[in-house]
């Protein structure tokens, strides 16, 4: 049996679990700030941006079958340029890890563990994630499939329990948007789709890579669907003005639920606890990838050796911002630019160079 192979179903689950993480909590209010009632446009278009790049990655892997993204980069680019690419990619992954960790810890502190120091939450989560990061991508994909139903269950659950209290008139008016704000909104929404580039790296280990694109896109549409449901539920619950002011409206909306006959009084605590799984499953692949990049840079046999060193690095990054405002305003901006470079510019450059090289060989 071949080691480290994943099925297309697993690829899809991996994509969904990696992409959905902390973004889902703040996305509704962020897009509402940018586009008011028409935030869904930003969610939709932001979610479609990755599509051409998924196609490009697929073409790239078809040109160099059985090779990993990093091997292709090394082959296509001069070593120096390849290393710069790797370093940029590496910085991106550790900043993402730091960012997700910080937001995660802030949420946990706010809702579950009021008295625990934030650093303790950060360290425990990092150590737990490093356990997953040390394994093969195949293992992460298996975990993703196990967590996948929970992620799909969440929006459905949200919808069902909120149905009685929703005020659908809050959704209106639509199409009242300011055209100039659209790029800004899309850019904001795009940051909630970070993580798809990690799964495109897995194209070369799928069992049947002719269908990988199909499944990846399906996964992407699932994510868009989940985001849209969450957006509409929060919007109709709060109305656009209150939604704009919320920090994590997706959690608060669960607090509104009060159905009789529950064993638990406050659902938000339980939902947040389950959300730990969701965040874990999006941190794992990032952490794994940063280890893989170091492996490629230093040419070692396994990536496991680097994982222990990554724990302090990411820990430091996650505690650099002083407070949540700095995290969401500054760190998130930096991250958006980095993500733009890593998930869009780098693949395009590599693809173009590879394409030209192949052409030259033929003629």
């Amino acid at each position, binding site marked *: *049996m071949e080691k480290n192979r994943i*099925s297309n*179903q*697993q690829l899809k689950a991996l994509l969904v679990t990696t992409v959905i993480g902390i973004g889902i909590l703040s996305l509704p209010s962020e897009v509402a700030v940018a586009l008011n009632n028409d935030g869904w446009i930003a969610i939709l278009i932001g979610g479609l941006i990755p599509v051409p790049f998924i196609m490009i990655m697929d073409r790239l892997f078809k040109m160099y079958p059985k090779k990993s993204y990093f091997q292709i980069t090394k082959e296509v680019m001069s070593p120096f340029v390849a290393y710069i690419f790797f370093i940029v990619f590496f910085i991106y992954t550790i900043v993402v890890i730091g960012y997700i960790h910080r937001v995660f810890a802030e949420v*946990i502190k706010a809702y*579950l*563990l009021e008295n*625990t120091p934030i650093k303790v*939450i950060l360290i*425990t*989560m990092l150590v*737990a994630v490093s*356990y*997953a990061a040390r*394994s093969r991508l195949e*293992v*992460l*994909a*298996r*975990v993703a*499939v*196990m*967590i996948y139903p929970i992620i799909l269950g969440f929006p459905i659950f949200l919808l069902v329990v909120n149905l009685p209290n929703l005020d659908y008139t809050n959704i209106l008016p639509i199409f009242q948007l300011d055209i100039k704000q659209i790029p800004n909104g899309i850019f904001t929404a795009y940051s909630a789709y970070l993580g798809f580039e990690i799964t495109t790296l897995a194209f070369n280990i799928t069992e049947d890579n002719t269908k990988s694109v199909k499944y990846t896109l399906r996964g992407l549409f699932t994510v868009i669907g989940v985001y849209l449901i969450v957006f509409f539920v929060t919007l109709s619950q709060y109305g656009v003005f209150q939604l704009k002011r919320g920090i994590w409206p997706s959690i608060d909306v669960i607090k509104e639920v009060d159905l009789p006959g*529950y*064993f*638990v*009084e*406050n659902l938000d*605590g*339980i939902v*947040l*606890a*389950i959300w*730990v*799984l969701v965040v*874990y*499953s999006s941190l*794992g692949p990032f952490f794994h990838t940063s280890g893989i990049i170091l492996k490629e840079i230093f040419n070692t046999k396994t990536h496991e050796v680097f994982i222990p060193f990554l724990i302090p690095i990411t820990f430091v990054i996650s505690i650099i911002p002083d407070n949540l405002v700095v995290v969401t305003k500054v760190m998130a901006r930096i991250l958006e630019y980095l993500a733009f470079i890593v998930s869009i510019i780098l693949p395009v450059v590599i693809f173009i160079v590879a394409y030209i090289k192949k052409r030259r060989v033929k003629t």
Partner: protein
Amino acid sequence: MEELSKDLNTNLQMLEEIFKDVDDLVFRLVELGESKTKACFVFIDELIDGARLSEYAIQAVLIDDKKDFNLKLFTSNLIKNLANREITISEVKEEEDLGNIIDAILSGQTVLFVEKEKKALLLETRGFPTRGISEPESETVVRGPRDGFGENLKMNMALVRRRIRDPKLKVKMKKVGRRSKTDIAIMYIEDIINENILEEVNKRIEQIDIDAILDSSTLEFLIEDNYLSPFPQIEVTERPDTVAASIYEGRVGILVDNTPFALIAPVTIGALMQAAEDHYSRWTITSFIRLLRIFAVFLAALAPAFYIAMTSFHPGLIPTRLTYYLGASRINVPFPAVVEAFLMEITIEVLRESGTRLAGPIGSTIGIVGGLIIGQAAVEAGIVSPLMIIIVAITTISVFALPNYEWASGFRFIRFAYMILAAIFGLYGIMLGIVVLFVHLAKMESFGIPYTAPYSGLGLREGDLKDTLIRAPLQKLKYRPRFTLPKDKKRMGEKNNGEE
């Protein structure tokens, strides 16, 4: 290894030398025919069936037909003649290697040496006291076959073979253990099993180098993938029907001599959550029970941890009235919830251990004294809250609800880890523990098959979920489970009664 000599006395002396101080080794000298050719039966007294030996071997060679016998004595191959024309024991083999002869004697065969012959005859006379077929104690069923394995390998193999009458059923015999030389039988159906699995099983068994295998557990621990894990990676069963069903699914059954526990590899979570009766009862109730078992797993591992997390970290999460009640019932309890939980959980574990080691009526007395009296007294004395007693009882019952003992024991063990996590980090700690457990399970493999196979791969439609999460009606289970990657995928024809 040394070879036999032509001289009978030299051979016997050699044996006497090797079996020095072994007083239960018997030499039975006889003289054959009129020429009085010397011969000798060698065996270990208690390992053989004495009646069979004297009736079908000794009597046969000494029988009074001198004329015929003498003729044969002058023909070249006396030993062959003895085997072919005189001895009426079912299994007879010629052997010239001393090592094999010694092994044969130790395993209960009788060896016949004859003067002027470089070969000896091995006679199958094994017969030693065994327990009869009895009902399996750890896996009882309401409906289904009641026979269970015993300690005798041959008998166990017979029980499996009676359920698979197919020449494709292969039985590979091996000897493992430097000193114990335990017989093991590897059984599989050739055109179903995936070769990679079989190869892996064979390879790992070949690599074993230990002096004794007393139970199949030794073998299990030596060939499993991850020996540090608290969870079993090979299925253990006392039931021949379970072994047969697994062989039909494209798995390998490994029977070990001297133990009623057979091994089945590979295994997945799905298989560990199945009881033998699942396929004997109707699909509706079985599906319900299977879902219930998954619930039981979580209860067994998490119930006390949740109690700790809720009472010490998140009283706001439980309904207000329950919080009041909890507060009132805990008002006399001097300990924090963790101490209370640990106290009771450890008490119940001790109780369980003492109950297991004591036989029959005393065991149940312990249960009553421990469970009822201690529990009642502890609540009245105000050491623990009544809710804690309920939690402990639920946990223990849930552990027993899981069909596989080793798998349930894994959860019994990690329950304490969750309690510690809950005591430090509350609900967050529990979830962290759960997700690390997920990763641990996902990391594990059983002979190259992902341990979490039905839940972590494939989709709903083509996957094994319809025979793991629930049990679909038999008509919907036309294909073998996929996790074993069987060569022959289909197990039912298109048309069965009740179908279009």
